[in-house]
């Protein structure tokens, strides 16, 4: 079983792990929140239905993002992925709220 050693990790390595954990837990949650909000507004159902459908899917989205962040080859890719997801989802949500519709 290839488990990285726990005590021998250098300070650099620990910092790296900390960065990934923060990116996964906080960055992942923010991206999930935006994705859920977008889904709730854009799914073609009654608002109450769309809200619940998006909420039900949220934990799968979050878990998927966390796994992907720990899987990614480099921290640079993590940042690029998170950044573009934030921009894309944020823009979609902003446009959706700007054009009215629900709410």
């Amino acid at each position, binding site marked *: 079983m290839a488990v990285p050693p726990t005590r021998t990790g250098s300070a650099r390595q620990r910092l790296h792990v900390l960065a990934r954990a923060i990116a996964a837990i906080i960055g992942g949650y923010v991206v999930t929140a935006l994705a859920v909000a977008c889904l709730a507004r854009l799914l073609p159902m009654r608002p109450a239905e769309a809200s619940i459908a998006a*909420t*039900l899917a949220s934990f799968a989205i979050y878990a998927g993002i966390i796994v992907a962040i720990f899987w990614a080859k480099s921290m640079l890719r993590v940042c690029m992925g998170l950044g573009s997801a934030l921009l894309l989802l944020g823009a979609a949500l902003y446009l959706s709220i700007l054009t009215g519709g629900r709410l």
Partner: protein
Amino acid sequence: MKESFRQSMAWLHTWTGLMFGWLLFAMFLTGTAAYFQQEISRWMRPELVANADPASATQAAINYLQARQSDAESWFITPPSARNPATEVFWQPKKVEGKPPTRRKRGETSAMLDGGGHPVTIRETRGGFFLYRFHFDLHYMPVIWARYLVGVAAMFMLVAILSGIVTHKKIFADFFMLRFGKGQRSWLDAHNVTAVFALPFYLIITYTGLVTLATQYMPWGVMANYASPETFFEELFPGRADVPRSGVAAPLVSVSPLMGIASRTWGGAAVGSIQVTNPGDSTAAITMTRSASTAIGARGESIVFAGPSGKLLDRHAQEGGALATQSVMVGIHAGRFADWALRWLYFLSGIGGTIMVGSGLVLWTVKRRAKLPDPMQPHFGFRLVERLNIAAIVGLPAGLATYFMANRLLPLAMADRAEWEINSLFLTWAGVLL
């Protein structure tokens, strides 16, 4: 690439598992016990006897409330059922203008009645219900914090399961290997066997558990469409808004025929609970909700009758796909629909999960002990984990045993007896820790 994915998942699995392993162990164990909460409550209240007829017991309960709580805002009645012999009633006392509702002790706004509507004198205990609430509300801390903590733990569990499937990729092949007396290998075997034994159960129970409190953990879906959560819930459950009393007195109709109508509407399913709003007033309404034991969906259909006339006022509208899905997910988690065979399967799967978490925790220390520079003098972090492992895995079951013993041993007249039963559980747990 493949190998590094497995490595990163192994790391994720080890640490997400350890971070919340102790809490998850407690959640698994009390949640498993909660599948039998009615039976545990029954055992802890040996004074209760006989199965009364639900319809006449409900009428008797209404007469009891009529005599004592005629000015209450509303009454709630849970008729006796196959698993619970007593009629449980509680009421929302009349609001006083300009005064915030005062917090009252449980016994002041609730009662347990026998089939004839007479209060039964039983020992003060929270029974199996405490284990059920501890499963997600914990104890000695504000409920809202506890629920966030439990939610974070469940999210860690979900990630630990997903990464665990990758880490122990040979688990399906290794399933039939349980090698005893081989140290680390045996713990790993136990971990793998219990993991594979009910893997779909763990995934589903973790996910549906998150769903039970989803709008607290992920409020963004609701916030995107509604100005406030209240408007959302009002749309979901219309007609729950307060109707002011008219002041015109009007007696309630007899409930037995209404229970028959409700039951026939649901294809013979029993009435699980009854709410009477504005009792004794001309605006009184009787809402009956289908028993949770008769269908998987947790949100039972309901039917509303006018209090004075018994006229059918409203039926719960057909739910859309997403809402029905949510209702079924919560229902699967709570397992209230389960018959005996399925209930035992739930219980066994829960025990399996408890062992999986426990053996995973032990594995963490067993694996590291061998690699320590001096196995006889482990460093502080290792000793801490080891001690917490023992405390969690041995302490909680010992605590539960003490809880059950305290139920029989504490004096019946003791002040705050129910709270002391619970304290005895945690004192034992803390004792093992020291």
